């Protein structure tokens, strides 16, 4: 009895030592990341968080003003009926009226479109088709070009006299018509991101060992069944990655809007990220504090969406699985 107890404590000790060793090793692996994370990210986010409680125009030191910045960002009183003689609102209703609805619309359309498209492309690339390499290179073309450059090209392609209208015999003022401008930018985003996402999904697909498919085939599973029961579950972590990055990218869409429409026509393409930029740098009376507050409101929204998403692509989200 005594010996077994001793052996047990020994085993416990050994297990604990192993645990410590593993933790130490893990931090060794993470050291470069943690170094950059602590020096840049933590400080940068902390500083921005502090600024979100201040009034700051970059030219003179920030002044603390508590939650006033957040109140002005949300500007909920803009939604309430107002007396005619109430005087001007002391807040900016652009977020609640334009930027937030626009951003949600954008994400709801672009994320499914780009994910499904890149999944189809990745599956196709994973088949034994001819000219696979050629196709892969071509599909990656739109992603290679910088977002600024491709935006300039799109401005030109989609101008009223541009190539698109000429080819299809249309007469649409794509970027200056508030009914089309935002959808043109969505199209551009799906176009440029699908290549990258295809590549990521393809790398995931190709790492599913053939042996698993072979075993399934032996058990009499047909292709559709193995797609459903093997490929999709095995690919889940990668799909979660692609969707998460897609959502974050959509919520933060900026470059294309900055270059193509600057939020216009009539605020129809003003997104949250563009609004942050506008407040932080573009306005003559800079509102860096409010821009920071908006950044954290946006981060909260993204977090909520990511959490919901984890529930849907269930199990794959948490690291410990």
């Amino acid at each position, binding site marked *: 009895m005594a010996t077994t107890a001793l052996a047990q404590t020994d085993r416990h000790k050994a297990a604990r030592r192993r645990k410590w060793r593993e933790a130490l*090793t*893990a*931090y060794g*692996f*993470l050291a470069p*990341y943690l170094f*950059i*994370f602590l020096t840049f*990210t933590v*400080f*940068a986010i*902390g500083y*921005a968080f502090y600024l979100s409680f201040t009034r700051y125009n970059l030219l003179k030191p920030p002044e603390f003003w508590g939650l006033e910045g957040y109140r002005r960002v949300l500007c909920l009183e803009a939604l309430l009926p107002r007396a005619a003689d109430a005087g001007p609102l002391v807040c900016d209703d652009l977020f609640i009226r334009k930027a937030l609805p626009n951003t949600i619309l954008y994400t709801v359309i672009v994320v499914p479109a780009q994910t499904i*498209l890149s999944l*189809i492309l990745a*599956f196709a690339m994973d088949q034994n088709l001819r000219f696979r*390499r050629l196709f892969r290179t*071509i*599909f990656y*073309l739109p*992603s*290679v070009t*910088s977002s*600024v*450059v491709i935006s*300039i090209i799109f401005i*030109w*392609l989609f*101008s009223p006299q541009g*190539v698109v209208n*000429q*080819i299809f015999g249309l007469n649409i003022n794509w970027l200056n018509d508030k009914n089309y401008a935002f959808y043109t930018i969505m199209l551009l985003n799906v176009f440029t991101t699908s290549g990258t996402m295809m*590549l*990521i999904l393809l*790398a995931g697909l*190709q790492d*599913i*060992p*053939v042996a698993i498919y072979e075993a399934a085939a032996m058990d009499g599973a047909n*292709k559709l069944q193995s797609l459903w029961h093997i490929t999709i579950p*095995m690919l*889940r972590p*990668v799909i979660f*990655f692609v969707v*998460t*990055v897609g959502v*974050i990218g959509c*919520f933060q869409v*900026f470059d294309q809007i900055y270059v193509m429409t600057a939020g216009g026509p009539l605020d129809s393409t003003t997104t*949250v990220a563009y609004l*942050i930029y506008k407040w932080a*740098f573009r306005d003559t009376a800079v509102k860096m504090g409010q*821009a*920071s507050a908006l*950044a954290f409101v946006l*981060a909260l929204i*993204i977090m909520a969406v*990511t959490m919901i998403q984890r529930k849907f692509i269930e199990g794959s989200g948490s*690291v*410990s699985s």
Partner: protein
Amino acid sequence: MKASPTYRAVTFSDRLILLLEKAKNPIFYVVLFIWALVCIAPLYFTLVFSLKPVANIYDEPLFFPNPFSLENYRDVIGALPLFPRWLLNSMLISFAVTCLRVLFCAMGGYAFARMEFPFKNFLFNAMLVSMMIPGQVTLIPSFLVVGPGIIRGGLKIGELTLPTGFGLLDNPLGVILPGVVSAFGIFMMTQFYKSIPKELEEAAMMDGLGRFGTFFKVVLPISATQLITLALLTFQGEWNNFLWPLTVLRTPENFTLPIGLNWFRGEYYTLISKVLAGSLFNTLPILIMFFIFQRYFTQSIAATGLKEG
């Protein structure tokens, strides 16, 4: 997959599957072909119209450069005496960032995917959250850290003055440093390692290789596909990176290609043909890189003995 003769009655769903099997490849070809056209079109038109004189920027024909003119390309080169310098700067920065980031992200991702350690979930979630803060508001604090320092004039402790920033303003290292790891890369590698079966590594661990040994001798080689994917994405991202180098770099000799070309664009904004020509100059080197990488990309899949896609 051929339909093997069976004695069991052929059900509807079996027929559907057979039909799909037969129709699958033609459908895929059509999808691929159409999407390929869509992908090529913008760059093709850019090429065509950059080879036309400025005055013909909206004129037919659309599909070939007529009248033909090299004037735009001549102007780009002529206007940018520092062009080779910028190309070199871009190459060096992108290459340095890519090498370091791939290594560090693979290490970080592996730790998150395979190891147990205190604060793991907290760190992982913190990383995800850090991706959610838009860059516009962290620009200034990041700039303070890399350049002049958080506290103006440095932190004074008695006689000692400690710098609170790296002092890398107008220095390529200032562009490289914050880019050597990315939350995106670690997140990507974590998800990849989770989708790879553990068996191979476990065998190596049994052989007494230890974590680091296993990582370098077994894990890195079998994850070559993902590493190259990450390398490609990193290189491409760094090559096109605009805002950060723009903020850090000051003198024209230190500019990277996109910043230099943006200078050109700022001056020639009314002459779209020239801007198109300049844009292709930015795109071409990365395309060439992709063609080179593409070979390794397919090779690596064969070399790892995994599925031949």
